[in-house]
């Protein structure tokens, strides 16, 4: 009998989409809140254009139940997923710290500490940032749905397989280039950082910058070369989290006694992993899509530092029954 905990994990994917939507929504909302702050700081409501007035009004309606002084109080929640400040707590992407150390060749402790919580969480939960928080994932997954629709409409969508170790090379090359040139190259090629700042540029500082072109190209890369190709093969952040989360304790496990070998998990896995053969590896971003799609609830989270070896075909499947009958014949 399956426990309720296992059955409830089916709904984690919806929760994940909720989290992704909230993060992305905040990235869009914060620039508008900043616009409202600047209007308030200038005491210039009467001089605003009609559009600006409506921004000011709606943001006032949204925030007035919670704060008294928008100019001061709204500063408590600022930033993007690249680096943010929540009520005095500063958090940064570990990749930002790696990039800054390699570019500046000095370790600045207060900044190092801002990445402490993300690093600890990554060591415990693996590449969860990629699946649960990253604002680029939000768009990449929608892009993947678009790819499915295009495929249904008869347009060719490539799903080539490359070597997943390419991204470690990108991470290493990025560190070397940063060290030699003194520029933090990750800031210019890491999609969540690009998304965060480009949304701010677009809303508050008249128009997108060059990073948006790069991001659109990664979307095309995903459509034309490989499924979720950028995350799987290029993203330096993904490489760093994969390395940090190699011995993560929270893993998805296949319960072979419940599995019926339907292979839906392999189809739904955007990272091209192989849940059906118990092969999650460090690349798994704990996105729970395979748990949600599993018709027999065979997949669930467990606490374990290693993936199981291949457990053989699922006990509810055709292969397993054949094997059993063969064995029983031999025994007779």
């Amino acid at each position, binding site marked *: 009998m399956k426990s309720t905990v296992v059955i409830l994990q089916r709904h984690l994917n919806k929760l994940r989409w909720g989290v992704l939507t909230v993060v992305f929504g905040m990235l869009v909302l*914060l*620039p508008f809140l*900043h*616009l409202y*702050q*600047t209007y308030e*700081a*200038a005491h210039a409501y009467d001089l605003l254009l009609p559009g600006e007035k409506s921004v000011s009004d709606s943001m006032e309606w949204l925030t007035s139940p919670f704060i008294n002084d928008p*100019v001061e109080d709204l*500063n408590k929640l*600022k*930033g*993007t997923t*690249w*680096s*943010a*400040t929540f009520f005095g707590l*500063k958090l*940064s992407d570990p990749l*930002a710290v790696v*990039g*800054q150390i390699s*570019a*500046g*060749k000095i370790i*600045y402790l*207060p*900044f190092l500490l*801002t990445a402490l919580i993300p690093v600890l969480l990554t060591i415990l939960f693996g590449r969860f940032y990629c699946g649960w928080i990253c604002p680029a994932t939000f768009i990449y997954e929608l892009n993947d749905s678009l790819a499915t629709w295009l495929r249904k409409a008869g347009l060719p969508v490539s799903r080539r397989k490359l070597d997943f170790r390419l991204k470690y090379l990108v991470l290493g090359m990025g560190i070397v280039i940063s060290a030699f*040139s*003194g*520029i*933090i190259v990750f*800031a*210019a090629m890491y999609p969540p*950082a690009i998304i*965060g*700042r480009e949304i*701010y*540029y677009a809303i*508050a*500082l008249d*128009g*997108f*910058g*060059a*990073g948006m072109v790069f991001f659109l190209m990664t979307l095309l890369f995903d459509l034309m070369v490989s499924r979720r190709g950028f995350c799987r093969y290029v993203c330096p952040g993904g490489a760093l989290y994969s390395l940090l989360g190699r011995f993560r304790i929270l893993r998805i496990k296949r319960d072979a006694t419940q599995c019926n070998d339907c292979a839906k998990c392999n189809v739904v896995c955007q990272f091209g992993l192989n849940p059906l053969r118990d092969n999650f590896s460090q690349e798994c971003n704990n996105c729970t899509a395979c748990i949600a799609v599993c018709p027999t609830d065979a997949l669930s989270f467990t606490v374990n530092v290693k993936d199981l070896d291949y457990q053989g075909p699922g006990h509810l499947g055709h292969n397993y029954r054949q094997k059993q009958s063969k064995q029983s014949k031999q025994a007779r």
Partner: protein
Amino acid sequence: MKRRSFMQKIALSIGVLGFSALPFGLSRLFYPKIKAAPHQRIPLPGALADEQAFIEACIGCGMCGEVCPPRCVLFYKHDGATHSNTPYIDPARKGCILCGYCMDVCPTDALTGTPIREVDMGLAQIDRAACYPWVDRGVCGACVSVCPLGDGAIDFEFGNFYRPVVQDGCVGCGLCVEVCPEPSLPIKIVKRLEGKVAKHDVASEKIEQPLPF
């Protein structure tokens, strides 16, 4: 045959039109860009003095822009090469009000917390051949009235109520550039040189190098 000649005529007319449009395109291409009042890009308050050190420290998170009350912090969005994604201030568009929020929020201390009178973004330099009171073309004093640091930073010339003179206390926030009504932007923010007080006229431009970017 008839259809063929018709197609030829269409092709010819398109060719002629395209060729006649060519000079317009070429003139657009080769015409020098108008730089009547080139906008300046000055560093943020509290930014590390060494430009290279600032680039190495700045991770391009954009939080300095997100907390700026007058929204004066702009970013190198599609230019600036090594500066890309780092912040700057365009004083002709918006000056810095020296509130210090950006220094507080910067996670890497690329913008180090600095008391406002010790901020060093540069030094204002007034072109005395363009400033209205200096050429006796009116009364103004906008720069002096807007200055957040008062007499120590910019003051009127002795005995004249309208001719502005920049003092040693100027930190280069650029509010005077923003308010100046003269269209040629007579006030520039120049780099403060060690042990030298900027002379505030056109002739001294050889001594005071404008910022290189």
